[in-house]
């Protein structure tokens, strides 16, 4: 009985000692990084975003969809499609990942979940994310981009890139909506 009590006490000391070591020795992730991780989680939970942004004085509205699409030769293709003010840019077969410059910037501004989500997640885990509160909105600094999220839930609300600022709405996908948008 005494042996078991000593063993239990030693095990408890190990738990407390280990916890203390981790608590004192390891840094805590920055609040900006924590908010970015939650924002990424929001983005990656959705396949469709609706967005609007001002481009040269003209407000463009659009939606960005991540999923399967009818491709050439009857083969389905996996990727991202952005329909913006009647124009279509797509990043099927991973092209979105390879997209550079203006195309990538537009996909990010439009809040395309499979483009913006991984980028935000990467910053959250390995970068330094600055954080500024403006009213009820948090602005998270991800390099030269700012992701605007709701202060209490970290739900993405918009993206600011240079002088351009978009507003985003994450939309739950339904079968009817998918059919209407021509995606699976």
């Amino acid at each position, binding site marked *: 009985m*005494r*042996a*078991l*009590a*000593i*063993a*239990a*006490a*030693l*095990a*408890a000391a*190990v*738990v*407390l*000692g*280990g*916890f203390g*070591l*981790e*608590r004192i*020795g*390891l*840094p*805590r*992730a*920055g609040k900006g*990084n*924590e908010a970015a*991780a939650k924002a*990424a*989680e929001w983005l*990656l939970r959705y396949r469709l975003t609706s967005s609007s942004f001002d481009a040269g004085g003209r407000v463009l509205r659009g939606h960005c969809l991540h999923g399967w699409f009818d491709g050439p030769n009857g083969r389905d293709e996996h990727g991202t499609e952005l329909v913006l003010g009647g124009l279509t840019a797509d990043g099927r077969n991973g092209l979105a990942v390879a997209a550079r410059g203006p195309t990538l910037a537009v996909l990010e501004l439009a809040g395309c979940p499979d483009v913006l989500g*991984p980028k935000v*997640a990467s910053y*959250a*885990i*390995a970068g*330094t994310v600055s954080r500024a509160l403006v009213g009820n909105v948090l602005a998270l600094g991800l390099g030269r981009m700012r992701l605007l999220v709701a202060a209490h839930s970290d739900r993405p609300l918009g993206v600011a890139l240079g002088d351009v600022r978009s507003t985003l709405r994450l939309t739950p996908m339904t079968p009817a909506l998918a059919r209407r948008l021509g995606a699976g």
Partner: protein
Amino acid sequence: MSELALGRYPVGIGARLRERRFVVGWWAAGRGLVLATAAVVHLAGLPRVTGERADNVLGLLGAWDGRWYRIVAAHGYLLEPGRQSDPAFFPLYPLLLRAGHSLGLGYVTSGLLISNLVFLGALVAFEAVTRELLGAQLARRTAVYVALFPFGFVFSMTYPESVVLCAIAVTTLAALRRRWLLAAVVAALGTLARPEMLFLSLPLLPLALRERDPRRRGLALGAVAAPVAALGSFSLYLGLRLHDPLAWTHAERAWGRRFTPFGFVTTLERLPRAVAGNTWAIRDVVFFVVYLALLAAALRAGVPRLWVLAGALVVVLPVFSGTFDSIARFGLLAPAVFWGLASLGESRRADLAIRTASAVLLVACTVHVLYVFP
């Protein structure tokens, strides 16, 4: 007489250290091969790999998961459900990296120093444990083979394997010397580096049960339970920081690892696709088979059964996670594997063949880091 009795027999220290000089020599030879190969790869200007620091001539050894340990050291833990994130990486090694960093060293440099220096300690302690358990001849060969083991380049990477091997050896040595408090502390620290340390409790249990005095027996049982308790401390930390006490295992899922009772079936089903995707996947299957053969050799050579069982768990259990990935590395933490190999090198010819083949393969395996994670 043994290492832990040095304090009581100071006269023998010099002689004993001279006797163990060969360990330092083989450590230097093995690490020389690995470090020189990494430097040549860097200077040859070959393409960089994930996580490699281009500004470090030994940057190759800081690649792959080394980056994750640096992330934990620099930024702390953050769980991203469904994506690869850092709670999959245990905290002791990042703590050591931070300690090195606080002395003004870069994370990669401090990792390389820690891994390689601690590996020397691991070899010395492992040789002593082997001598105690299996005799001087086998101990000598074991130390040489561990120093040159083909996949042992990992001991020089910014990975925690050398720290865990050292913890395994020092814990065992302390237990054999009945210094249970020391055994508990080192076993706990080792578990905070890699979960494989949990299996050390198996061979320690009979030693603990041999204690008759209640106080000593309590400490001994506490030492046996220390790895589980240390894992509990990590879960407690993750629970309070990330609100998920099992974040370390949940994060593993993003790497395709999920333990299930029939996980080995999934592993076998996935194997053809894994090999088709990356031919190097066959590497871990080959090492898996080799490790099992070496464990059988260890059993035949008279290695205590619980050590063989602990080794088998280290090697076989990952197969239940749905993938063979990294089994070559996990097996480095199964002492019985090395004892099995040492038992095969009894004749002079076999010994020379193992040493030569190991050295050549050690260089080749170091180069292969360019193509696949260890």
